[in-house]
């Protein structure tokens, strides 16, 4: 009898501390390990400044839309309309420039404003009509797809896209940093300050953490939730615009697939630093993991089927590292 103790864990405090590091930095460790592995596997092509710039450049659009989505999920709602919305915005901005001959900045402002309006509509349906956000944003997304069709009859707007519009995303900034990266850094930086350092950000976090408590504390929960949708909508608009510029055309469903990428980035990110909370920095890390994973596997030239398998495994392992670390450290 004396040998049956209920204590089953004999982890030393040192081991627990080490696990704690994994818990906090698991996804980041995963990202670094992945970069290291690809660097060893493709030493010539992968670990170069130009490749990293390239990856960041490619990932910028996904990061912007995922940054916006982060706000929506932080206030506790899902926004499934973003991919469809970004597609519409891409068509619209090209249409405004090509068909309606609007000046490029004006076209961009109009489209971003429309993004905000879509966010408002989502917010209204969710907060005032009390429709579950999955249905609300799926419904709005479907309607948006219809609008995109109505506007373009499904035919991409290709000819007559001015070079200046293409330069929006193809151009480079000081030190040769691609514009996309600069825009992404500004957007995510702005969102980070908003969420982490301002009074509105506190309210956003409170609403997401416990909407009932936030309401009792006098926070206008509906307004904050709507704000989350609005920002999500504006970021989707920006991504749609940059995508149209990158593709050189406005195409229906061009951006639909961002939905899944953005969700993967946001949820991957929620395992970073904080336990299961959504935040901008985490989303950034999540998007980097996805982008470097895709790039590294491409460069390494893995066969298609194993690319899928590795991509899936990367998602799970990156989060698993954190989560297991957390479970073991806390148990």
């Amino acid at each position, binding site marked *: 009898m004396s040998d049956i103790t209920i204590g089953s864990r004999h982890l030393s405090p040192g081991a627990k501390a080490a696990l704690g590091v994994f818990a906090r930095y698991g996804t980041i460790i995963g990202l670094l390990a992945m970069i290291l592995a690809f660097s060893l596997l493709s030493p010539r*092509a992968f670990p*170069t400044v*130009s*490749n990293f710039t*390239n990856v960041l*450049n*490619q990932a910028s*659009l*996904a990061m912007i839309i995922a940054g916006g989505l982060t706000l929506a999920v932080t206030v506790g709602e899902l926004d499934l309309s973003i991919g469809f919305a970004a597609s519409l915005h891409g068509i619209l901005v090209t249409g405004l420039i090509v068909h309606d001959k609007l000046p490029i900045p004006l076209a961009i402002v109009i489209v971003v404003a429309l993004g905000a309006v879509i966010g408002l509509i989502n917010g209204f349906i969710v907060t005032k009509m009390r429709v579950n956000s999955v249905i609300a944003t799926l419904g709005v997304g479907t309607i948006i797809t219809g609008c995109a*069709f109505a506007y373009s*009859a*499904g*035919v*991409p707007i*290709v000819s007559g896209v001015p070079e200046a519009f*293409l330069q929006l*995303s*193809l151009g480079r900034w000081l030190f040769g940093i691609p514009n996309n990266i600069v825009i992404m850094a500004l957007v995510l930086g702005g969102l980070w300050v908003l969420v982490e350092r301002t009074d509105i950000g506190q309210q956003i976090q409170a609403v997401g953490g416990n909407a009932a408590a936030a309401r009792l504390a006098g926070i206008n929960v509906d307004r904050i939730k709507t704000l989350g949708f609005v920002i999500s909508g504006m970021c989707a608009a920006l991504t749609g615009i940059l*995508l149209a510029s*990158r*593709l*050189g*055309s406005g*195409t*229906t*469903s*061009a*951006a*639909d*697939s*961002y939905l899944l990428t953005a969700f993967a980035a946001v949820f991957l990110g929620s395992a970073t630093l904080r336990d299961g909370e959504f935040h901008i920095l985490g989303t950034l890390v999540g998007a980097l993991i996805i982008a470097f994973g*895709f*790039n590294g596997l*491409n*460069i390494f*030239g893995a*066969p*298609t089927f194993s*690319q*899928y398998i590795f991509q899936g495994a990367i998602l799970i392992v990156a989060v698993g590292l954190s989560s297991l670390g957390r479970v073991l450290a806390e148990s």
Partner: protein
Amino acid sequence: EDKPLVGLVSISATEANNARYIEGAKKAGEELGYEISVIDAAGSADQANAAIQNFAQLGAFAIVDMVFPWSSIGAGLDAAKAAGIPVVTWGGGLGGSVAATNGSGGPMVVPVNELMLKNMDGKGAILELTYRTGEVCRNREVELDKALEAYPDIEVTKNEVRIPGYFEDGAQYANAWLASHPAGEGNLAIWGCWDDPSIGAIGSLRSQGRDDVLVYGVNGNAQALENIKNGHMTATAWQDSFTEGYNMVKMLKEIRDAGDSWEPKAVEVPAVLVTQDTVEAFLSEHPDAIN
């Protein structure tokens, strides 16, 4: 390690025709000592651009864009051009800095359209399953619209399918259309801008036990051929993707050697109309078309 690298960027490496094109490309690559690397962009133009950029980054010998129209790979073309790497398209058309193309699927629908309109005998109803986002599909739709101008008595219903979801959409659109077009109300036909939506529609026809509707597809994928053989489909135009992939890769060296003096051109492989009458002969000639 130092074999010339040919990068294939596929809209959907899991789609049958894409897979056959890839096989053709691989065959040619094997013969020429190229390394063929395939990236599946999973329908996302953005990922296709990224993949083209990645191949440019790698200093590929050439890059093949599969099905994404040249107009939606602006950033990729830019990067390849900067690196001096030729980009060719399959079904993506000729434009921008694209060096060559084949598989321009638009014209191959013409014999299918002609056969269908002949069978319609100037009257009846057609369900068109379209996919306008795809350039090839759009061109085929335009071809059909042109041909239909001469037949005002044919009622046309157009429905746009989605990717993914084309089977289900094809079936559901067919269901609804069939409900308002009962058997015995004139000549009925379902036309898909490629085979898969039509195959979805066949599922619906069969589960309703309707055999009064003629079904047409384009591309001639294995499943369509099988359906023709079994009498569920009327006709398709078989695209020889394998040969297209094979020929294209064979031509890459020529393009690189010519350098700046290369004139962009289309190098089409003609499609073959396959009907219930010709399917047996066709299959004995191209046994691997169905496998």
